[in-house]
């Protein structure tokens, strides 16, 4: 089990745009380097990606939550 950690403080979004589908659903598979969320900090948007491939078992934050740098965002099993 590995976790994906926030690379910067900000607000986490699980989808690229408000109407869009999520980057990945819980239980979905992810490839190494695949984007799983966006972090917005002061109008800058940064993609958060998984470092390894596997199954994203669950998100540890809600869509729109404020997070600090290094905070665990999601669990990846693989």
């Amino acid at each position: 089990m590995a976790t994906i950690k926030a690379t910067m403080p900000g607000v986490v979004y699980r989808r690229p745009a408000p109407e869009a589908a999520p980057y990945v659903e819980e239980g979905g598979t992810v490839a190494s380097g695949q984007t799983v969320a966006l972090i917005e900090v002061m109008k800058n948007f940064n993609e958060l990606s998984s470092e390894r491939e596997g199954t994203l078992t669950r998100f540890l934050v809600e869509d729109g939550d404020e997070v600090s740098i290094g905070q665990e965002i999601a669990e990846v099993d693989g």
Partner: protein
Amino acid sequence: MGGMRRVLVANRGEIALRVVRACHAAGIEAVAVYSDADRDSRWVRLADDAVHIGASSVAKSYLNADALLEAARSSGADAVHPGYGFLSESAEFARRVSEAGLVFVGAPSPVIARMGDKAAARAAAEEARVPVIPGSGPLADENAALETAPDIGYPLLVKASAGGGGKGIRPVRGAGELPGVLATARAEARASFGDDTVYLERSLEGARHVEVQVLADDHGNVIHVFDRECSVQRRRQKLLEEAPSPGIGPKLRGEITAAATRLAAHVGYRGAGTVEFLVAPNGEFHFLEMNTRIQVEHPVTECVTGVDLVAEQLRVASGGPLALRQEDVALDGSAVELRINAEDPDNGFMPTPGELTRFDLPGGPGIRIDTGFVPGDRITPFYDSMIAKLVCWGTDREQALARAGQAVSELGVEGVASTRPLHEALLASPEVRKATFHTAWLEEWLSHRE
């Protein structure tokens, strides 16, 4: 219209506080609005009343027109001041405010719509005999672009007609690059704006960004309040501004200010607005765009003219005439504004939210600080990164810069990174001292420092 008694300040941070103060100076009540994150802010405490408008994200608060209109209604406001950013240049918001029977402290909705459309604004400038950057109209296809490009001349820019805020702009150095850049630019424009119409514009190398402050009322008065120099910018975000521009002489100043007032009069402007120009090294100036609102850097103009621009906004919005005529506006000295942002200049200008554990502000003769924060406040990730504007006035440019250097050395910011060290370096640079910069200078200078 009638007099205003109670103004809803539909913004946050230092500009909200600036408007609250202007209302109080005019004997008008001010109603602040706040999101969850801004609940205990200074501008909220200093207002006469405050309304919670929603969650922290901008879409749920400061960009939520329904919530703002409801806040105006529930608080008994009879006017709305939009500040800058957010909904300040939304023609639809201005229209809805008016339709709700409230005074919009800004330009008329149709004027906002016209000047917000790049092609329409350019056409308005041409009608008003204001020089525009040599360029094409909207281009239907690649062949049209290839035929037109030689007449405009290289280097040039491919721009998306529907673009804005610096987005959808691509440079082309020579004819060989054009087909490839065109294809990319059109695909990008289609994806970003849902419209792949592009046009070509000459790229003015080494140009300066000079803008003119205008004021207009409903009684036929249109005046300028001189110019500002805003060439020191990174990714089209200004970092250091001054008034007047050190790069133009009296003759050019006369021409550029006359052009700005001509355009404002031509479009039936009302309120405070800014006409932006690019000034080429040969002294030719070209219309860039018009901002139909108060600007971040308006204090430098206030410092060198003594004109209270927000007070004039309130006055003309309530139907009154401007308090001054053109002959009453004179330049006195020089002013510089440093934008202190919660960004780390040593780490790619990464924004750094956090708690302002220390926030010591400078003072002394000629120093004005506009900020919405006090020590202990949290700088949240939800909004832009500006935490303070250091505005420094002197009897001449040399004294203004010297005071700016002293002010920035007194400034103490801890808990978040800030652009303070960058400003210290900028003020020491020969390019800023001698005002030899242009719009691409800061990014070149930063790349050489790395």
